[in-house]
């Protein structure tokens, strides 16, 4: 697949934005600026970047508890996301959602969903809606190897296949379901083989190779958009940080983590770009631009007001019942 220069730089920019966002929030979390808990996407950037590069603003995604990468790749703003992580009124969810629940329906982000596996069946709903309304919108549904053992994985893939819904199921196999390694949570090595039992096309890709993800996602998005139904993509990747920040990680070795650090998707892609003749200055300029963006995002989050307790119960229900 021929990928043009602008697209390549876009993929690079998205990955750097996610990486730096994650590095920054890890530090802010450690400094006590961010309440709650944090599931870092660090190391898995190529999956979100490669898949979302094919999506239009009116396409949908469902995301997970580890959702920062997905939402940023789909076009979410770092300042509004940062403010949400700070629990500020100006955040995407006005401080009601936090790290695990960032959503922006205006650009098709149907939310980071904190219950593992829940997004698979909600993605179907959005895809059904597109099909029902006769649009060519598609849905990218992100989930992990852990979620592939939930009941909704089966219910979701079966129905999507049966109704030929325009969904791209993207399994980020990051080798661990929280603390449990894949070999201890399923006998199979490749989640993708499960697609066969739904008569669904599938692909296995190197999830740390953004061009490989981009290529596979492109094929799946075209299939969905043209009305030819869902695809299961398994992206083999690795969660560099613990399940959550503060995770003692006594279930894996430092050597294993270091091995995967060597496979850093951003460094790898940067090398590819330089080899292709992209000027280093051009990449450095992107890096600098992201730094500036994140500095502004932190400042925005720091300076934003906290929500007022008078807003605490706002938004439970939509108030205007249009009974006619």
């Amino acid at each position, binding site marked *: 697949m021929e990928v043009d220069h602008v697209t390549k730089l876009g993929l690079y920019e998205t990955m750097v934005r996610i990486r730096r966002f994650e590095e920054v929030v890890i530090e802010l979390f450690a400094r006590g600026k961010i309440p709650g808990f944090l599931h870092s996407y660090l190391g898995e950037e190529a999956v979100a970047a490669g898949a979302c590069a094919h999506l239009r603003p009116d396409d949908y995604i469902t995301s997970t508890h580890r959702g920062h990468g997905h939402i940023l790749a789909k076009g979410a703003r770092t300042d509004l996301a940062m403010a949400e992580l700070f629990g500020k009124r100006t955040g*995407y969810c006005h401080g009601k959602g936090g790290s695990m629940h960032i959503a922006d329906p205006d650009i098709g982000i149907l*939310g980071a969903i904190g219950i593992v596996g829940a997004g698979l*069946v909600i993605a179907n709903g*959005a895809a*059904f809606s597109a099909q029902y309304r006769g649009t060519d919108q598609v849905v990218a549904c992100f989930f992990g190897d852990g979620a592939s053992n939930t009941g909704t994985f089966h219910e979701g893939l079966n*129905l999507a296949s049966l109704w030929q819904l325009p969904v791209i199921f993207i399994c980020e196999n990051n080798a661990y379901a929280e603390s449990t390694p894949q070999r201890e949570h399923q006998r199979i090595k490749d989640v993708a083989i499960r697609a066969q039992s739904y008569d669904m096309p599938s692909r296995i890709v190197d999830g740390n190779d953004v061009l490989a993800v981009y290529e596979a996602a492109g094929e799946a998005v075209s299939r969905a958009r043209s009305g030819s139904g869902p695809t299961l993509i398994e992206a083999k990747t690795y969660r560099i940080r613990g399940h959550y920040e503060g995770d003692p990680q006594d279930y894996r070795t430092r050597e294993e983590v270091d091995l995967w650090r060597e496979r850093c998707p951003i460094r790898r892609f940067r090398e590819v770009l330089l080899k292709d003749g992209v000027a280093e200055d051009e990449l450095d300029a992107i890096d600098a631009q992201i730094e500036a963006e994140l500095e502004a995002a932190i400042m925005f989050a720091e300076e934003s007001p906290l929500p007022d307790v008078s807003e605490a119960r706002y938004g439970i229900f939509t108030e205007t019942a249009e*009974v006619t």
Partner: protein
Amino acid sequence: MAEITYREAVKQALREELQNDERVFLVGEDIGRFGGTFKTSLGLLDEFGPKRVRNTPISEAAIIGLAVGAAATGLRPIAEIMYCDFATIAMDQLVNQAAKMRYMFGARLSLPLTVRIPMGGRRSAAAQHSQCLEAWFVHVPGLKVAVPSGPYDAKGLLKSAVRDPNPTLVFENKMLYNTTGEVPEEPYFVPWGQANVVRQGTDVTVLATSDMVSYALKAADTLAAEGVSVEVIDPRTLVPLDVETIVASVKKTNRLVIAHEACVTGGVGAEIAARVGHDAFEYLDAPIERVGAKDSPIPFSPVLEKFILPDDEDVIEAVRRTLR
């Protein structure tokens, strides 16, 4: 006015709402050609076609997930959970997703979805096909809950539910499907949150829900012959709950009996008793009495089931206790 069954009233509501709004569709198990286990959608597939009447696999989580995703993206799903007991399979989608998405996403979207849930026993269907679990959902902020007791309310509340921009659950009672009542020929709506004073009285208030309304009326007839004047109130919806009408009645009669088919412990009667106990404390001349199923799984054998489930005799005894 026309005399129709509760079943026909439900079907009329579904038909009228399907006619009224292209965004409305039905989704559930065996609701297509088969017409639903309780035949509430019989004929609607022929009338509206397979796009609008979606028969699904046995996948309750996928059904509600589909409704959530579709409602979040512009449609107005009406889902059916075949038996109340099966809602347990979809609890994550109902409780963690449908109820919370609007709030946790900062009120950035609305979820106009309706779930119809046939409930109740008295059919020797045993422990897994007889429950009344409405109280579980009353306990979850973000869900609206109705318990229609007759054809007029079954139609009017359901039509209002479909037009409501929020997740609404309508618990229909299986034993009521064949009962009849007067329903206007022209379209009408029953607003949620307005209790119905079914029978005026002066000595004791009986607050009854769903099929317990008919038992309460029967009890009221028996007690009237003994010179006891019973006021029967049907709250119609439990969320929102019309506390005002209930409290006003208790201030008049000074006695309250609460009757529902669900088991007593943790039932909605507990919540209503607490509210009335607070708001009308000084008006009460007797402890508030609760009538419900004896705390037990519902047994199979008719003689056992009849013993466990409440009826008019239980209401009469409870009323007498308040008069002692």
